[in-house]
């Protein structure tokens, strides 16, 4: 009862008995070829977990009391056994939140989803207009997403999520995204673009400018109560006031990823051998990987902040995102490439772009070059967002550490 908030965060750094935010990518197959796909998805991998293997993983998650899984891909709904697995999970007290581009959300499916407390849906949308969205996600993807939203809203599904990856082209559309969410009775969730997967190829062109980062931060402070971020922007805490969430890297501590072939990585944005902890196919299953892997043990130990520790913002930003550093070739104990003090930009300029680590797998569609983002006009940002007292969106996170974490809750 006397515990200070910091001490609980400290406990989280040592790791938990089971992850809070477990992302499970069910397949690498996808009908789209988004230019920034963090898992380089497109084609199914022949080694993907079978239906029975998936059910054994769910059994294990039930035993570990993993409250819910964030299912993604690829496009998870294209797996023929997708609905069977969703039903199996919810019947075994494992809630399901799944991310989709909306391709399979028919009126019938929407009605079924609206009927379950244990299922949450997240529709991906990366532009508030078809022009901006389709440049990143492919032709027709805006119409598909909007149709799915309409079906969910018509079925009475309240509070589904609209998930937006923030890019240079859409930061100026924040208010428009919010309007779309409000129109469908949905909740807006915005996350950070990572240079992971195919995102590494487009990061230079797509990641927000320094000015846009500030704009985004101000907008988040003004809308903290109603917008989810999955604690994705904790590197922006360096501006001063922290954003809702843990403000720490949750990789291997409260977060991890199970990929379609059962490999367990420290976080969804770190699909690389350097962050591979084991496989659910190993003898001890997922539980042993989570509890005993050497990699996760290291991530839960003391982390060196390197040069960043002498910066006055370090306590706030904690040096930023491990995956963002890794895939831009920066040292893990150095600044985030989008460090708000500009240390990342300087480090990148000094180091130059040498060879940077590539993701371990590439399941991109063959023979169809990824569409390159087309230049679009960046609209006006929100007018001087006034700082209102920020609230804490009390929803559990999805792909990253603890949105809505409230250290002061319950004693």
């Amino acid at each position: 009862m006397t515990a200070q908030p910091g001490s609980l965060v400290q406990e989280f750094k040592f790791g938990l008995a089971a992850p809070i935010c477990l992302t499970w990518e069910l397949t690498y197959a996808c009908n789209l070829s988004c230019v920034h796909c963090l898992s380089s998805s497109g084609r199914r991998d022949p080694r993907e977990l079978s239906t029975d293997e998936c059910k054994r993983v769910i059994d294990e998650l039930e035993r570990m009391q993993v409250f819910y899984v964030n299912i993604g891909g690829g496009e998870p709904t294209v797996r023929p056994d997708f609905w069977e697995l969703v039903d199996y999970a919810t019947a075994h007290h494992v809630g399901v939140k799944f991310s989709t581009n909306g391709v399979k959300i028919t009126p019938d499916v929407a009605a079924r989803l609206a009927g379950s407390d244990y299922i949450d849906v997240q529709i991906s949308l990366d532009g508030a207009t078809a022009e901006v969205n389709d440049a990143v996600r492919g032709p027709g993807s805006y119409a598909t997403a909007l149709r799915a939203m309409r079906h969910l809203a018509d079925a009475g599904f309240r509070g589904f999520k609209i998930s937006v990856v923030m890019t240079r082209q859409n930061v100026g559309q924040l208010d428009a995204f919010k309007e779309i969410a409000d129109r469908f009775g949905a909740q807006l969730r915005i996350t950070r673009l990572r240079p992971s997967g195919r995102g590494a190829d487009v990061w230079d062109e797509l990641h927000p400018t320094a000015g846009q980062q500030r704009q985004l931060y101000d907008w988040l402070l003004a809308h903290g109560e109603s917008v989810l971020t999955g604690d994705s922007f904790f590197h922006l805490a360096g501006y001063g006031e922290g954003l809702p969430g843990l403000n720490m890297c949750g990789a291997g501590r409260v977060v991890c990823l199970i990929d379609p072939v059962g490999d367990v990585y420290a976080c969804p944005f770190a699909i690389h051998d350097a962050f591979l902890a084991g496989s659910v196919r190993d003898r001890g299953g997922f539980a042993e990987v989570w509890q005993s892997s050497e990699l996760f043990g290291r991530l839960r130990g003391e982390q060196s902040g390197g040069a960043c520790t002498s910066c006055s913002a370090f306590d706030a930003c904690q040096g930023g995102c491990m995956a963002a550093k890794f895939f831009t070739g920066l040292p893990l104990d150095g600044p985030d490439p989008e460090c708000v003090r500009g240390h990342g930009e300087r480090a990148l300029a000094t180091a130059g772009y040498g060879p940077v680590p590539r993701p371990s797998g590439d399941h991109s569609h063959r023979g169809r070059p990824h569409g390159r983002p087309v230049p679009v006009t960046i609209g006006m940002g929100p007018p001087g967002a006034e700082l209102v007292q920020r609230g804490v969106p009390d929803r559990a996170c999805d792909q990253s550490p603890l949105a809505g974490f409230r250290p002061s809750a319950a004693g």
Partner: protein
Amino acid sequence: MSTNTLTQGIDLDAAWQLHPQVSVRPERFGALLYHFGTRRLSFLKTPALLAVVNSLASQPSARAACAAAGVTGAELPAYARALATLEASQMICSRGPA
């Protein structure tokens, strides 16, 4: 739930229980709670509070649950407030003929 209740704590002499849609996972520091209806997480910061929450349903009152968990008289007001926080977020609810 009035501000007063959050300040004063819940009625310790009433009967309480864990909300049926809440799952509890013990952790080194105490426990994590997840409410499937509201999709909210909560944290119990001491093992003693976990013991209190776990025994609410089998004890005649919150006061009895606290006593069974070894909560001292001096600590009681803090536990009453913690339970009020849990009630405000629907993690626990009243039980019996209410």
